[in-house]
């Protein structure tokens, strides 16, 4: 039991890459659509709902949290942004072979396999987090701090003892950026939205996670039912789809959250090609205050492909087998 709780921290640890490199696609098109948002009326589905359907990508180089070097600077100028993007792309590129073998093996494979976006979010905000204004995840509560450190220590001490020492992503149980909430990752940042008269489906390519969300006003499931992706309910506020998610598994942790995580996601189509996606994290036992991030979803003509994670997960076997082989050699 204790072991499981500890392993839970893995989810918090999973999106390791997030800090360095993600963000909203801030293409010129996206920027333009924000500008037109005021006088633009979103199309409706045959049922008369605002139409959010299609495949969307949240690839961006803008990081979730504002990097220390940009502290106090909420937005970049166009020139600053161009320089920053250039530097980021160079920094994260896995095509480079410098830095020695340990860094090199960590870069895994060529950049060609990735799809991290090539620009910042349209408004050139320096973090996806819009509140608090410092662009950082608020401090954890003392209990959460303790819990996260314990998990981190467990993961460190038992990294290759068994599957539980690996992250949930490595175990193909939950993907750090598939959420909810959804964040950009290094590849497969694709989300397909479908609407019927009484449900909306949010299908994240990673790791073939589909949330089928009732729109009929029913209550959440009982508190004894806990799920990795939580229990989502949606309703319309004007043209905005509001998704309310609770009942998260006590093993799940988003950036340090616990079973009390209450997540609100808001989807607003602001132009033909952009949905403004905003999520707010409420979890008074984990964070000292709520926090909010904004991630534009950009329309793409691509399709979502199957990401059958567990079925081909040779790597988990290899990691554990490698550790056993090392013990034997000792």
């Amino acid at each position: 039991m204790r072991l499981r709780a500890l392993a839970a921290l893995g989810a918090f640890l999973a999106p390791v890459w997030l800090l360095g490199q993600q963000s909203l696609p801030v293409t010129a098109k996206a920027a333009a659509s924000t500008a037109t948002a005021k006088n633009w009326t979103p199309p409706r589905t045959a049922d008369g709902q605002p139409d959010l359907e299609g495949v969307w990508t949240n690839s961006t180089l803008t990081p979730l949290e504002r990097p220390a070097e940009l502290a106090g600077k909420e937005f970049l100028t166009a020139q600053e942004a161009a320089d920053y993007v250039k530097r980021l792309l160079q920094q994260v590129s896995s095509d480079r072979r410098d830095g020695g073998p340990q860094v090199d093996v960590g870069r895994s494979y060529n950049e060609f396999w990735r799809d991290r976006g090539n620009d910042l979010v349209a408004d050139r905000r320096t973090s996806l987090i819009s509140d608090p204004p410092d662009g950082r995840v608020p401090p954890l509560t003392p209990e959460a701090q303790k819990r996260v450190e314990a998990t981190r220590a467990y993961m460190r001490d038992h990294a290759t003892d068994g599957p539980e020492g690996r992250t949930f992503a490595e175990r193909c149980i939950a993907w750090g950026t598939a959420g909810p909430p959804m964040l950009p990752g290094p590849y497969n940042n694709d989300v397909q939205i479908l609407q019927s008269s009484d449900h909306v489906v949010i299908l994240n390519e990673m790791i073939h996670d589909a949330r089928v969300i009732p729109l009929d006003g029913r209550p959440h499931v009982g508190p004894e039912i806990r799920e990795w992706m939580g229990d989502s309910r949606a309703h319309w506020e004007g043209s905005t789809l509001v998704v309310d998610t609770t009942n998260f598994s006590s093993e799940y942790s988003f950036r340090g959250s616990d079973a009390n995580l209450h997540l609100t996601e808001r989807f607003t189509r602001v132009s033909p090609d952009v949905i403004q996606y905003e999520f707010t994290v409420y979890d008074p036992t984990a964070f000292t205050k709520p926090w909010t991030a904004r991630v534009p979803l950009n329309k793409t003509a691509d399709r979502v492909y199957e990401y059958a994670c567990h079925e081909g997960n040779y790597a988990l076997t290899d990691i554990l087998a490698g550790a056993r082989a090392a013990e034997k050699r000792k």
Partner: protein
Amino acid sequence: MLAPANAQNQAFKPPRTADGKPNLNGIWQAMNTANWDIQGHAAQAGQVVSLGATGAEPPGIGIVEGGEIPYLPAAAQKKKENYANRLKLDPEVKCYLPGVPRATYMPYPFQIVQSGKFILISYEYDGAVRTIYMDNPGPAPVDSWMGWSAGHWEGDTLVVDVTGLNDQTWFDRAGDFHSDALHVVERYTLAAPNVLNYEATIEDPQVFSKPWKISMPLYKHLEKNAQLLEFKCVEFVEELIYGHLRKQPSK
């Protein structure tokens, strides 16, 4: 088997979505034991002694039209071997995605979400999911577990052409299998307010001597606030798959 329902269908006027298509939205489930064996089968003892009656294999009259699967001789032999080793080889044991058509008659509900542009089926088992493209998506780029689904309407029947299926899935727990040449054509027809007739034609010239058909009614979940819950089974099979690689405490 479906004849009465089809006859009924002539009189039955299906409810329609806003864009005029038969409304297939809902949570559906097969009420049969085809997942144990798509052919007719008597009950028998299970594979795991400690499970007792809870692990025993329930009987069923089968969903294969005509009763027999037309295996080629070598394939019939392989099916026998699969059956003998089913506890080890059945992909469901390892929590692998079930493929089509097996996902339809597993003992878990699934939900059809029908929009004007796509139809998506979300299966409770392993969170398996398929998008049925109504815009002719072309050939599958690669093979996958749940395949590549292209749909169209023939009258009030949703016809789904499924290709791009890999050779890793089975039809049931009894070792009935196919190759990556599998081609499945599914037909979904509302037969009554809460009954969806399902038929699938199975074609795979590497394994079967001719195409064959399965059929069954699917029933709608009418419970108040029915919804799919998570059955993310990966965690449940880690000990089975990786347990032998665990660090031994003594060492």
